[in-house]
């Protein structure tokens, strides 16, 4: 039995090596094909306050009937101006922006100084997304902080820094390092900002060790204040 096993095993290996040698080669084959894609005009769910919301009720007279969606430039302008979630920002000098390919994150950043590593993300959610206290509670649990009573939590939220972005949106900067001792320099920590918009909230969350997030707080503040909707003016 051992003889047969050795014999057949050698055969298998020889056949495999032979096929490997015959099959090797790395020619990159070019393929050509015709690609056709037919798109549709963008459909939007616009808020009533949106100046373009009236488009659906536009009279089809001589003046307005020329504003058809076959005009590529006009279509592009309309798309850009009414697309919710299209944001611009200025990346702080000491940070690098990482391109996000999928998921809810609009962007993520890391700092260039690897001695104090942090990660910052920007997420935009429609609606009120749970409220400030609910989000603060969730974030505290994420970094393993004991969640205080509702009264203490509300006092903490009220004491947090309030800002306004360049376009006048309200910002609250939640600094969770206040709940940690100075001796806990390497403990996971977080500073986050919530930007309130009419129909959405933008969350900018910076995580890292306590000393790292404190060191990068000014950079986070400058990023948050620079956030504005694409196409809006300063």
């Amino acid at each position: 039995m051992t003889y047969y096993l050795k014999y057949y095993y050698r055969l298998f290996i020889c056949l495999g090596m032979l096929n490997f040698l015959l099959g090797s080669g790395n020619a990159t084959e070019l393929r050509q094909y015709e690609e056709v894609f037919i798109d549709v005009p963008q459909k939007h769910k616009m808020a009533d306050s949106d100046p373009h919301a009236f488009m659906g009720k536009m009279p089809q007279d001589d003046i307005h009937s020329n504003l058809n969606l076959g005009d590529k430039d006009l279509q592009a302008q309309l798309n850009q101006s009414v697309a919710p979630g299209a944001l611009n920002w200025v990346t702080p000098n000491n940070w690098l922006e990482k391109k996000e390919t999928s998921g809810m994150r609009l962007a993520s950043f890391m700092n260039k100084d690897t001695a104090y590593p942090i990660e910052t993300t920007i997420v935009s959610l429609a609606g009120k997304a749970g409220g400030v206290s609910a989000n603060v509670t969730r974030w505290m649990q994420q970094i393993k902080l004991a969640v205080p009573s509702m009264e203490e939590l509300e006092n903490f939220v009220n004491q947090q820094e309030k800002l306004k972005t360049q376009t006048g949106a309200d910002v609250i900067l939640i600094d969770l390092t206040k709940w940690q001792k100075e001796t806990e320099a390497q403990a996971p920590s977080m500073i986050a900002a919530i930007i309130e918009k009419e129909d959405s909230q933008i969350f900018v969350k910076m995580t890292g060790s306590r000393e790292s997030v404190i060191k990068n707080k000014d950079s986070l503040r400058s990023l948050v204040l620079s956030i504005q909707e694409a196409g809006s003016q300063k």
Partner: protein
Amino acid sequence: MKFKKKISKNRFVQFFASIKLTVICLFLLYILTFWGTVAQIQYGLYQAQNQFFHSLFFLVFGFIPFPGAQLVMWVLFVNLICVALTRFIYYSWRQIGILIIHAGLLLFLISGYVTLHSSHESYLNLKEGQASNVSAAYHDWEIAIWESSPQEDPLVNKNHVTAFDVSGLKPDQVIPIKHLDLQLTVKKFYKNCEAYTGDQSNKILSASGIGRLEPTELLKEPEKNTPGGIFQFNINKNKVLDVILYGGEAKPFSFQGEGKTYNVILRLKRYPLPFTLKLVDFKKEEHPGTDMARTYQSLVEILMDHAKREKLISMNDPLRYTDYTFYQSSFSIDKMGNESSVLAVVKNRGRLLPYISTFVTFLGLVIHFVTMAIRSRKD
């Protein structure tokens, strides 16, 4: 008889007609099936499939070669043919059932080979009203290049694309694209990487403002890997451009050369379809009182050679056309409220072979049992 004697004397045929070889092959298939199934936990489905079932051999502990399922089935295929030639060469009516069973088993192996080498799975994601004649691979990538051409209708994009797979790209590899007067040189290529913005002083161009790529570890789920690389484009041996291409970019990189505008993008591999498929309407039904989808279906229009027909694709009723099958896979709703239907597209030239093999094997079994029954009655 003479043929049987002659062929039985052939040492190659003698070796491969051995029943011991059949037993060893079946034993190895048993080992590989069990091992490959358990290995999926550690390596993921895709890598385990490639290593244990699609390969000819693989290395255990890094240096011990072990036969893969493809090699074992090749040997089993040759074994079955040699057994049929040497043992059943009488071709008497008594053995016709067993011969047919062997033919069915051979057909099974052939169908496995055809499926492995000529089938592929992809998907098609369409919003209502959109149409496309290509589907996208789940985790194979390509670099696609096309020249810009004037489009009569801004909503209709027609491009003649030249593409090549990126799976085997190596640094310093040169890829000439003669019909476009282009030459591409791979400077760096990563199968999984992250893209960062940064200083542009390195003069490497990018469609999305990417400054550098950082290679990262390959993940066991291949759909989570995003490739990227730095490529040098040489336009008609004059202009040279260094470009970063990253799989996460939505827009192509455009550049001018010799009076033409070229567009290049690193994207999921595209498979041309035999027709253009348009999503007319997508319907979803939810379980009462919940947001959970109960069923969903897509009404599609098949556009081919100026002819159109509609077909409703639902979860248990796919669209079949020659070697292609379109299944209702999933759906999505974007932030704008636009519904997209995701259709799984399977192309399999050998899709009928398993059915034929099963029928032939079943027929052989029936004939064999009937023959045995008649013989035992006579005895």
